[in-house]
């Protein structure tokens, strides 16, 4: 039988084929009395809650805390956060999956986001991504992915290595960068955005 054609990019969504497991209980607000939450995780979530007049606004801080604790947002982590916030886990997973930075699957803890948006791709970002994937794609500790504009078009093509912006990255520098990422070294220190002076000539003049 002919295979039904699927758009690869549309079926990246794991949930589309997800049926409910009828043996599970409905996911109501987890009762604090019967949900154990690691103390560090609880403390981090409660710290987030303090920043809002309405405590259950702290969804994003809570999800960051879960991701920090587990390396991704596993169901049990979401349940724990839900127990602390007093909301259903579904309310949290709805939010988590809306945002690009929350990982719903266990991937490498080291994140490498390569901007592939217009300005960067005008400067060779697609090639950079391919090269980094070539170097690091197999490494289970590293999560290399193309990303939308990271707000650093002045250093195109660029990447954010665990939040550290580096660029412009020449293709020749990729093996070195890959090595640094694997070993947990500071990525291309000379290329880091934070060290870059302003481009404005009036600044340079002064």
């Amino acid at each position, binding site marked *: 039988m002919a295979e039904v054609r699927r758009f690869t990019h549309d079926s990246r969504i794991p949930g589309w084929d997800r*049926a409910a497991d009828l043996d599970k209980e409905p996911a109501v607000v987890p009762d604090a009395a019967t949900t154990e939450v690691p103390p560090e995780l609880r403390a981090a979530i409660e710290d987030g809650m303090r920043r809002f007049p309405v405590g259950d606004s702290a969804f994003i801080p809570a999800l960051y805390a879960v991701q920090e604790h587990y390396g991704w947002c596993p169901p049990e982590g979401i349940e724990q956060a839900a127990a602390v916030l007093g909301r259903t886990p579904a309310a949290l997973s709805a939010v988590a*999956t809306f945002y690009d930075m929350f990982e719903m699957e266990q991937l490498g803890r080291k994140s490498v986001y390569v901007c592939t948006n217009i300005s960067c791709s005008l400067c060779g970002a697609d090639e950079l991504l391919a090269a980094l994937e070539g170097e690091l794609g197999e490494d289970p500790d590293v999560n290399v992915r193309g990303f939308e504009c990271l707000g650093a078009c002045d250093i195109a093509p660029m990447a954010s290595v665990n939040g550290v912006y580096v660029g412009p990255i020449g293709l020749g520098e990729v093996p070195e960068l890959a090595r640094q990422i694997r070993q947990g070294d500071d990525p291309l220190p000379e290329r880091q955005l934070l060290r870059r002076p302003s481009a404005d000539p009036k600044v340079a003049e002064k």
Partner: protein
Amino acid sequence: MPRPVEKLVSLTINGNEVQAPAGMMLADAALKYGDVEIPVFCYDAKIGPPVGACRMCLVEIEGIPKMQAGCSVAVTDGMVVHTDTPTVKAAQEAVLEFILINHPLDCPVCDKGGECPLQDNAFGWGGGLSRFVEPKRHFEKPLALSPLIAIDRERCILCYRCVRFSQEVSEDDQLVLEERGADTFVTTFDGHPYVAPFSGNITEFCPVGALTSRPYRFRARPWDIEQAGSVCTLCPAQCNVSFSVRDERVLRVLSREHDGVDDGWLCDKGRFAYQAIHVDARITEPMMRDGGELRPVTWDLAIETAAKLLSHAGANTGALVGGETTNEEGVLLAHLMREALGSNDLDSRPGGALEIELLRALSAPTLQASVPDLQYAHAVLVLDCEPVDDAPILDLRLRKGVRHHGVKLLIGSSRPSALDERAAHSARFAPGCGEAFAAALSAELAGQPSASLAAAAGADADDVGALAAQLREAGDEVVILWGERLTAGPRGNEGARALLNLAEQLGLDGRDGGGLLEIPSGTNSRGLREVGVLPNASIGLADAPTAGRDSQQIGEALADGDLSAVILLHSDPLLDQPSSALWQRALGKASAVIAHAAFLTPAVLEHANVVFPAESYAEKEGTVVHPDSRVQRLRRSISRQGETRAEWALLAELAARLGSDPKALTCSMVSARMFEQVPFYAGLSLDLLGGVGIRWSEREAAASFPSAPAAPFTLDAPPAAASPNGLLRLGSFRSIWASPEVEASPALAFLHPRQRVEISPADAARLGINHGENVTVASNGDFVEGLAHIRTSAPDGTVFLQTAIPGDSAALLEGPLVEVKRS
């Protein structure tokens, strides 16, 4: 909260001048007042304010350069609207083309086909062709979303209705959207099923066939079925329903939206328990006990035997009448008892009678709040009841009031309420201490706080004070939504007095938008009382010439041999009455038990001598009275199943055989006579009731309601809540799912509750009990088993068990204190 005032504005729609209330959304106004349909998908006024997501409703408004969403623009004076220009047409066609990009054209095998808003909108406003040549998405379908609901994600048009229902109407927050943009999909958390008291609404509310009812799937096409409007009698909320009938079978129940009753929603019991009409377990022929077992017999034999048994017992007959009994059946039963048998021992209230004067005071028309009042009041005090279990649809109304109209919700209950989270304040008291709590609260309101009353209620004095402060500051329109249990049991009269004093403190008598609203124990409790199915009242709540025994006394008299026969009209005392032990003895002793029942519930199975099949609510005709005094009409929607006969006719025949023919030739004759006999129903007729019913308390005839003594009453000191002393106080509740219909419906059976033992974390720790393990709850040698359920919100020192669970009901235990230990 004053209801929105209707100020009319004039606007022009497609060249025609239209008058509509200011603030109404254009799409509603155009349809209702201008006869112009603006197509919509995501919008429905009953979910709350519009979100403007689907963009189906774009229209042009002069003076505004961009097209506007008709669902979310309020009409204003002088507005000039066009819904039929080429620009609008192009936008409508485009939206439909966009929506149909990924919508599969599987209408021939879709349950929604023929009653599908997407089909209708595509037909009415679509361009008729698509330029989309890319392959559509295909995914596995249909998938189970719950045992009751199937989801077909290909068909979903992301209109947000279902998730908004879950998040903003039922507020269970289980159904959500995940991912973003075109990848968005409707789902639950991590593959958990969507199981919640109101989940089924989404199958009716989905504008395409993405969410369908599993029990209804592939059972019929819209043109195979007929819609029959009636009223659901499975609980006191009496939602207006429409049965989808095919070949004399109910295949589905839909809402027959009534703003004064249900706001267009149903609970899952109301939506799916129709299945119990058509199951083998249902009793559909008369039966008699023969050699200890119930066996089918002919009608003649059954009637003859019943008549013989009753005639033998004569005035020594008692009758218990269940809430699903209609007014007409109630009238005829009262005739049978009082006229034919000479007995006044009949009751429709479990647990004992209330002084008739107090009952009148509580039912006084000037003191009755309506269902919509719950949505608009300044404050609602939920007192000694749990709406989601006791009259589920009211739970949604309260949530709506809080969410959209700023109603201040206050709760006084023993068991933590599902509404606590939405409440401005919740106070707890010891089980059974509603009387003391109400008294403490009115003392607070009177400015005489009483620590001893609060202590007697097992409540925290500060808590009572806080609740009173909230009530005092709320505003004039206060509704007290109270549960019958407050006025049941040996101290029912005192409970009623305390409640009336509270209402008096708040000045509720005669107040528009405020008052009392009772959630009684039975569906038609209000009607049954009003037509005299009480030991101390005759029709029209008049004094009974001779007062008889109430339900508790009937049980005692049977046990003592003072009564010998009992009629159980839609009532199983082992499930419905507070003490199972008493009723085990009573029924064991009775020489004749005549039951009218749909299922072989424990009392019927073990004790009935003659069993008459009860009509289901889809087979019945007659009237019932909503707790807010709305008289509603039941209509026969299907023919009676099996050998079932009309029960009104049976009751009339029994009376005739016993020598007092009520001369009831048709059911409507009984209704007509009743409207004449009940002074405050005067002028009502079945035709007048029509499909929407009438609140008698709003009519002129209400003036002839019997007068009642006025509060304040002097109260005697309530007994103090039992002190646990190492034991636990026993609290009980009846779950929405604890009903024979739920147990009998294949689709719902999974919800029929097992006993669970709710305790606080501190008590659990003290008793060494873990969550989910088997525990035993015992008192006086009786015991009940269940799974331990530790709840943070459970009050310390109290254990909660469910009633109405065959075999393990809380009614098996005497209380007030029980011992809990691991099994």
